[in-house]
């Protein structure tokens, strides 16, 4: 409760400071609108449904691509950790492509798939997949060999050991890989949406883009706030419970 209050107070002070900056008149109100105007834009956009619609489109793209990336990345990471051949082929590829900022996939996706949902999906999957493979691979390699030995003495077979020992033992790495994958996917999707108009759906990135075209700074800042809030919520809802579980079980981090 106390922590929530201090958070709220901090943001209240921040917004008030912003308001004072606008009041001082040093900056053009076209470039720096009052927080109240931004709020009014958001309120209207929520009322007429454009904001919900755009958020829904964006989240749908993000989740579909993200889940595909994880579902593919996890087993591939297990393969690169388990088999030398996969490590030398797929592992090297993943390591290389992971260093590629995922925004760089956008031009390629557009040429390959055109202005379609597939292009969006492709960009998000590329953002997630490689870091998921790397994280899973690292996680498996960091599992103390004694765990697998202990499991074997208790009658655990190959597959059982992988599912019930190696996989849960690498969870700390896998979760941080999922988090990183999420961040990459989110960034690349935003870039892609700002870059191109996909006729099958208007995402948050497109709203941001049109805000710029119309010189509507309240819209630009408003959408940025929404993007930040979604990022925060994802962190709190998707990852915090996992991280709390890991910290509690492993005894890492502060309680």
């Amino acid at each position: 409760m106390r922590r929530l209050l201090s958070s709220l107070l901090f943001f209240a002070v921040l917004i008030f400071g912003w308001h004072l900056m606008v009041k001082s008149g040093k900056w053009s109100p076209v470039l720096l609108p009052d927080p109240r105007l931004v709020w009014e834009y958001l309120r209207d956009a929520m009322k007429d449904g454009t904001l919900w619609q755009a958020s829904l489109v964006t989240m749908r793209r993000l989740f579909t691509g993200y889940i595909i990336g994880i579902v593919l990345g996890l087993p591939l990471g297990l393969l690169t950790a388990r088999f030398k051949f996969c490590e030398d082929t797929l592992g090297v590829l993943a390591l290389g492509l992971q260093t590629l900022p995922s925004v760089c996939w956008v031009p390629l996706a557009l040429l390959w798939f055109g202005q379609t949902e597939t292009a969006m999906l492709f960009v998000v999957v590329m953002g997630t997949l490689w870091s998921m493979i790397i994280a899973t691979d690292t996680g498996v390699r960091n599992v103390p060999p004694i765990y697998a030995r202990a499991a074997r003495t208790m009658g655990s077979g190959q597959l059982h050991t992988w599912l019930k020992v190696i996989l849960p033992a690498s969870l700390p790495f896998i979760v941080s890989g999922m988090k990183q994958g999420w961040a990459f996917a989110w960034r690349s999707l935003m870039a892609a949406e700002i870059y191109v108009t996909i006729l099958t759906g208007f995402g948050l990135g497109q709203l941001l883009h049109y805000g710029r075209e119309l010189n509507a700074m309240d819209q630009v800042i408003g959408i940025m706030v929404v993007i930040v809030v979604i990022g925060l919520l994802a962190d709190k809802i998707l990852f915090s419970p996992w991280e709390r579980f890991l910290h509690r079980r492993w005894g890492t981090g502060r309680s």
Partner: protein
Amino acid sequence: MRITEELQVIQPAKLAVQQVSKRFSGRSGDVHALVEVSLQIAEGDFVCLVGPSGCGKSTLLNIIAGLEHPDSGQVLADGKPVTAPGRDRMVMFQEPALFPWLDVIENVMFGLKLKPNLNNKERLEVARFYLKLVGLEKFMHSNVHELSGGMRQRAALARALAPNPRVLLMDEPFAALDALTREQLYGDIQKIWEIRKKTIVFVTHNVREAACLGNRVILFSPNPGRIREEFVVDLPRPRDINSVELASHSSAIMRALKGYQGEAEVSE
């Protein structure tokens, strides 16, 4: 009632180590970890394997466990050759090797879940029984990191006992603990050995510990690893590690150990 059947004291196994040799190739040439080692261990015996590091005692334990394979020779458990790990021979390592993603009772249940013919309620009850036996029933829902070193080894002991093995193989399980905790565990393991009637093979480099726990103490020497001498410790139980009678046994073993070590140094 299946629980009572599951918890009953079962016949411990006898072990026969027959002409076992094992070589490891390392950077500085081959190491003969074990050379034609033979050893008979009777049902329900408590045997300690002692020797300096590199004498192959842990390797022999791993071979009995089925975690490693000998280059030649074989190990028989109740007359059947050992080829892989089995639930009849459970192992306790120097590290507790408890799984951090499970709480204490789930750790104890891990091996039980692989045991057929039990439902989960029965497994829970069995796990509880063993946690009680090692004095950890209050901590069954604790996380592993919340336990002290000694408690972790107790939990590991409960986990090893839970599938009701016929042989318990212990690889320096108390080496990383402080002296006081260790003394408590000496008492516990003797008590549990008497209640649960296991054949125990216990590897240690601590001569006094070996004399305190074992009916027989088998002395190994390194390069090449082989059995040099056997001591029978026939003191009544429970034994106190600080007793005078025990000291005379352990000093005899120590003298022998030093003799072989001196010999090894000269021959190098």
